[in-house]
């Protein structure tokens, strides 16, 4: 039973490995054109917000 499970796991891992290899081959076509890859980190807002300072703090001028 244990052996079978290990075998399954190995197969899954091999499949994953194969898929990754294919995926990498696909992305490999960009290798010739691109320079150093950059990681552009984008942080969304931590909570819903409205425009800063878009609500009046003082009494309106009547």
């Amino acid at each position, binding site marked *: 039973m244990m052996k079978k499970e290990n075998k399954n796991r190995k197969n899954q891992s091999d499949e994953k490995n194969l898929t990754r290899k294919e995926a990498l081959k696909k992305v490999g076509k*960009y290798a010739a054109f691109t320079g150093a890859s950059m990681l552009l980190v984008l942080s*969304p807002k931590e909570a819903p*917000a409205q*425009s800063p300072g878009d*609500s009046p703090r003082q009494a309106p001028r009547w």
Partner: protein
Amino acid sequence: MKVISHSIGRKTALWMPVPNQYVLTDPVAGEIAQLIEDGFEKEKIVNLCVKSAGYPENEIDRLENELRQLMREEAKNQKQKYGDYNMEPLFNQMKDADFSEKYYRLLNQTFRVSFTSAEAQFAVHPKFAHLQTQPKESVNHHFRVFHHKKQFALKVNEEWVGFWPQEREHFFTGMFSQKLLEKIYTKNGNEWMGVFHASAVSFENNCLLFAGNSGAGKSTLAALLFSRGFDVLADDFVPVESKTGRVFRFPAALSVKKGAVDLLGSSFKRLKKAKEYHLPKQQKTVKYLPVNHFNSNSVNHVPCSGLVFVDYKPNSGFQLEEIPPEEAFARLVPDSWIYPSEENSKRFMEWFSNLHFFKLNYSDNEKMVAEIKTLFQKTKPQAS
């Protein structure tokens, strides 16, 4: 939660659950991130990338290090989700003497909103004043807005929602709108894909989002389009539903800056007589223009087909050009709230991939209105 990747134009976007960040990068880095997540050792990853994709070893080595570091990063200085501090004791001491109480009618529901001070009222009321109704005994929801010792607090139906210091007032007003939105449509926070900082204009069941920096002329553009028969679904606070990707109506008034009042005055006679409000932080004066209501004929959610980054520039005439998806992504994400879950980030990136992207510079209003009408006809929503 795991890392989600999606192709955005010629780039790959990765969503990192901790600390809720999107990373825009080359497709190979997306593959490396997936390999790291699948538990591959560094040596194996470098080997696979060099052999299969032909990338230089030192480049893969560097990317792998940087990605692993990002993916390991703990939530630094992570703040409490809804508000910054637990100020409950401070606000619990307050007695029930409210400064004012207003009633608003939104989509067949009555909201009673109590304000504990003039400051609390000024932070919220002007944008919703046009929805005010007569006091009623039977209400669907009770919101209480507190302002005490330079702190804002919000209670909805007797439950605390959060506490915000005055300098983070925009998060307090954002949460007020979010809670209002959830109650209007009876949808929880996690049913929303996000809230976008834009003006949502619709025409013939097609919605375009007009985004841009503060002062870029989004609201003026939305008001101009409204005066020519377009529908304004939302301004400044644009909610999109996660499941359908539809933009939902949110009926806060448009804030029109003093400079635009003369321009819009001929189309909106009531604007000249409207109350003027001073925003001390930005040293500007605005008027609120209520163009957005719920009524029996109103369509309250519309599929979205595009994103237009607006910049009003004097004497620029009119220029509208397509921009790459990756540029639009990098501009949109930091200015948006996107519900942080694996399923939703996937939906957000899929939704985004189906949009068209443009950059608009204009000063010629007539030309802008005509060309935007054509743009609505050219862009077709992918989902309904």
